[in-house]
């Protein structure tokens, strides 16, 4: 709790320049709205985001990544999280991997949810054949198993970082589309959308102004869940050797590389697995405890 307030403090002072004290207390109040488990999630999430952003800078200060003969070393003062199968420091490897896991997953999730939401809004607001074409088209995509699809994509285009982002994005568009569409179709039938339509508003206005703000809450919750799916997909692809390629590694590849530690009793296989678990749980804690998610429906301001 202490860490989160202190890390966010510079943010608050920066915005305080624009609108003095009210803004600051507002931010603190919103933070309080997360509740204890939400704040815990927020702290863990911030930790990993900072690790991803500051990782290279931190690592240049610390010990060289070069290996020693000391493979699968247990946790010690020299190597806080032990060493991997080449004797490299595990802490450095995990922090380096955060960049790929958090970065690629975040981009892919935004891509999937963004595309899915936009297509869903288009389908709901224009209806008729556009809806039919989009829905059936994306249903077809759902029919292809995601691992199989990833395998084909990697075989065809190699496994560069942009390719992984696009691939994970495509795999998760249909799910986001389905949810956004069912929400949007319900909103579309409400009287205020009908009123906008009788006013002569265009499809774009109805999509963005009338429908989108009212499905944003649930879609945000869905974004969090989808992020978890993407992290797990990337981890499992890396485990299969199809994801991020050595020598760099995301957390999934770290688990695979160090699978031998299971027999040796080293910490190096458990640590990246725990990192994956902590990130996914943290994201869900944050999303579940988003303050004021339903406040609007209750009429709060």
């Amino acid at each position, binding site marked *: 709790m202490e860490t989160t307030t202190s890390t966010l403090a510079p943010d608050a002072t920066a915005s305080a320049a624009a609108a003095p004290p009210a803004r600051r207390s507002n931010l603190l109040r919103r933070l309080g709205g997360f509740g204890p488990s939400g704040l815990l999630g927020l702290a863990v999430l911030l930790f990993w985001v900072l690790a991803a952003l500051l990782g290279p800078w931190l690592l240049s200060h610390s010990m060289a990544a070069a290996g020693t003969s000391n493979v699968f070393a247990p946790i010690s003062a020299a190597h806080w999280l032990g060493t991997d199968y080449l004797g490299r420091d595990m802490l450095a490897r995990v922090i380096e991997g955060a960049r790929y896991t958090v970065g690629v997953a975040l981009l892919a999730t935004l891509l999937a949810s963004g595309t899915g939401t936009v297509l869903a809004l288009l389908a709901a607001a224009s209806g008729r054949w556009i809806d039919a074409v989009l829905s059936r088209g994306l249903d077809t995509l759902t029919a292809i198993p995601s691992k199989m699809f990833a395998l084909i994509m990697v075989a065809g285009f190699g496994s560069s970082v942009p390719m992984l982002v696009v691939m994970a994005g495509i795999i998760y568009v249909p799910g986001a589309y389905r949810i956004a569409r069912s929400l949007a179709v319900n909103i579309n039938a*409400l*009287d*205020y959308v*009908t*009123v*906008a*339509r*009788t*006013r*002569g*508003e265009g499809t774009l206005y109805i999509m963005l*102004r*009338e429908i989108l*703000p*009212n499905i944003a809450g649930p879609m945000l919750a869905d974004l969090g869940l989808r992020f978890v799916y993407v992290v797990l997909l990337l981890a499992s692809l890396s485990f299969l050797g199809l994801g991020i390629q050595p020598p760099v590694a995301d957390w999934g590849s770290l688990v695979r590389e160090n699978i031998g530690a299971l027999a040796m009793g080293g910490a190096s296989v458990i640590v990246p697995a725990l990192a994956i678990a902590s990130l996914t749980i943290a994201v869900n804690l944050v999303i579940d405890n988003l303050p004021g998610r339903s406040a*609007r*429906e*209750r*009429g*709060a*301001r």
Partner: protein
Amino acid sequence: MGAPLTVQGLSICAGANTLVDNLSFSVQPGEVLALIGESGSGKTTTALALMGYARHGCRISAGRVQIGDTDVLALDAAQQRSLRGRTVSYIAQSAAASFNPSRTIMDQVVEPTVIHGLCKRAEAEAKAVQLFRELALPDPETIGARYPHQVSGGQLQRLMAAMALIGDPELVILDEPTTALDVTTQIEVLRAFRRVVRERRATAVYVSHDLAVVAQMADHILVLRNGRMSELNATGQILAAPADDYTKCLLAAARPAVRASGQASGDSELLLDVQELSCGYGAVDAKGQPAKIILEDINLKLYRGQAIGVIGESGSGKTTLARAVAGLLKPCHGTVMFDGHALEPTLQQREREQLRRIQIVFQMADTALNPSQTIWRILARPLQFYKGLRGEPLKRRIHELLDLVKLPHTVADRLPGGLSGGQKQRVNLARALAAEPDLILCDEVTSALDTVVAAAVLDLMAELRRELGVSYLFISHDLHTVRSVCDEIVVMQHGRKLSQVARADYERGPHHPYYQLLARSVPELRQGWLDDMDRAAAAATPSTRKALA
């Protein structure tokens, strides 16, 4: 059979708010007490507390509720559970939402006796059939085998009464049991309820916002306002000589008031001319006829400044007519002439100027206003869209509109969720007025509002019509409302126009029998109205009654 009910110092809180404040009253065995008040006055909260129940987030903080010899609030949860459905039973507003759609009616009606182990299943069923007969349900022997969707709304409401009465409760709570029904159905249900309550000498608490209905049912009336008792007295006394100001206000709102138009129809120009209009839903066949015809051959003339009421029961096609005029539904036959020009059948084909001149106001203010937009944005949009207003003129116009509908300027920054039902309906009207339309289609604009609030909205609409000269096509199921604002009434049934009655002829006959049935079914604000109706119905020969139904 009924037991006396005594309530002393009942208070119910939700967090720091007091919903019901120190309420005391008593009901003698076999008497009916009505709880009346606007929404949010604590009627239902009080009624539920009589069973020892508080809704989620609420807490019964003080007081005593005594039914017969039982102190309800002193019982533990298990004892209260055995009390409910046996000693006290509850009839909710929406029977459709209270029945399980996947079980037969009989299963659900005898459920209280099964849960409490009162008698054998066969005995319970025999008793249920007896109750069905008392409640004047059709086919009492076999109706129990049906599922809830196979009976009408009015029948379902009576079946719920049977469910409540099967355990021979000492106290029956009826919570707005007829509010969701059409007038013609309401009268039958009221009749059945009253007979059962009288014959069984049950003690009853009747919750309602409709004084005219309550006047038929209750021996005493308790007027609630903001959780406090405004007045408690015998029904006759309340109706004849109310002591409290708020009671007077309620009575005034419930009495029909004619709101003059100030405009004579006929000598002004023809604004809307609906010619041979037919509409329907579903797939269109080779002859251009849709699968289900909703409207057939409607002809209607509306002159500038006139207000025409369209009335009929649910399913009569009233709303479809408004949708066709607005361009939301493409007619399969006929034309809509507006100010001398034929309107295109669909919205996309109409010009912006045509769209501006016809605005629509919906029934449910909750769904008619976008919950994520402030009132400012809701009102600004039509002004920007049609007139391109911005900056200072926009601000001035929004303030003008808020003044026009009598809302303070401060609501502009709020979201719809922070407004009351009446305020939302005013915003709804203001948005329509922002377009400066010639015609406003009003779809049941007051149905979701309390009597006092609805009366204020109707006053406002009449005033706007006088000042701005807008015309209304006023759709409602409530003859009382329509008569008070409209110059002419169009009566619809099963998608057809039955007759058109001018204001001057409201009280004079002869009218179409269906109009007369509707007119007679509106409860009058006096005691004994329902008895008179019963006598009239008994006098009428069965054949004419059948013809009316």
